[in-house]
């Protein structure tokens, strides 16, 4: 697994490198960090959150041709209590948005979100009244995957990038223990926010 991640990092300079100790890393729990992160990134259970056509590609990446089981991600969970990763695959309508936020809140920390496809990431072709223009208006997104739909290899590439991100997380920062209150506030094209994130988290 590590060679895979290394390979992606070599090809892609935008992936964050692991912060070293001189740059203010944590001394006491450094080794523990590595073990915990290794366990976390190799057993990510995704939540089945297929909302539209992108979900078909998400299913196909779990099938034998692409086989997410190679990354320990084949256990798609229907219950948010058992899931670590929400792959938002498809367009999020404004009616679905509170539901999505609620399910996100029900997932236990640490949790990650991958926004799959043009629709989930920014509205895509549906720049209209019914679709949330980017799921990052309601939940914090870790990795965005462009494409309509992204092919399974593009999704797997994103998941490898997510693994790399998990690798750089530090226990000492207590990232996953502090509730994430602020949600990135990106404006829609007409200047209004689709849904107030604070409503959902109250």
């Amino acid at each position: 697994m590590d060679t895979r991640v290394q390979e992606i990092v070599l090809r892609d300079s935008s992936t964050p490198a692991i912060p070293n100790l001189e740059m203010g890393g944590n001394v006491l729990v450094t080794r523990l960090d590595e073990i915990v992160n290794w366990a976390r990134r190799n057993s990510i259970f995704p939540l089945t959150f297929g909302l539209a056509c992108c979900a078909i590609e998400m299913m196909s990446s779990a099938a034998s041709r692409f086989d997410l089981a190679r990354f320990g991600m084949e256990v798609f969970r229907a219950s948010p209590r058992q899931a670590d990763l929400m792959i938002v695959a498809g367009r999020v309508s404004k009616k679905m948005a509170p539901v999505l936020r609620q399910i996100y809140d029900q997932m236990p920390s640490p949790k990650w979100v991958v926004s799959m496809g043009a629709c989930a990431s920014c509205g895509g072709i549906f720049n209209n009244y019914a679709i949330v223009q980017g799921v990052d208006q309601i939940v914090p997104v870790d990795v965005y995957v462009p494409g309509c739909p992204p092919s399974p290899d593009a999704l797997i590439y994103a998941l490898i990038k997510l693994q790399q991100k998990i690798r750089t997380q530090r226990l000492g920062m207590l990232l996953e223990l502090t509730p994430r209150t602020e949600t990135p506030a990106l404006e829609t094209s007409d200047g209004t926010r689709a849904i107030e994130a604070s409503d959902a988290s109250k």
Partner: protein
Amino acid sequence: MNIVRDVLKPIGKGLKITMRHFLEPKDTVSYPEQRKEQFARTRWKHVLLRYENGLERCIGCSLCAGACPVRCIYVEAADNTDTERYSPGERYAKRYEINLLRCIYCGYCQDACPTGAIVLREDYELADYTRESFIATKEMLLEPLPVRDEVAEGVK
């Protein structure tokens, strides 16, 4: 209940299917090490082409932006001058930006372009961590300048 007929035989039958598939060649593409062969008309990240002499093909006509169903292309044209020449025609694209996140990779821009400047190629590894990083500017899309083989041209 007959233990052989009702239990052992069905289990053997089932395992025979499992074993048959176990011995078949593997379908899995182990993606990062091994890449799936892309189809001939695969459409992923855009590339702005150049002519052989290094001039840009794009003439800043904005037809691609007009054809784009999600309006994710922004073109700002400027005039070529004799001292600063970017493309053979009258004008060139001063700014050319594509929002790769909103793009649906339909290829309409490629069809609309009168000079064949923009093409969609096979680079599908586009995922990233922030929304801002998906704005592809002209510098990121443009093909690198051809390297002149000066020995072959007889300059040196």
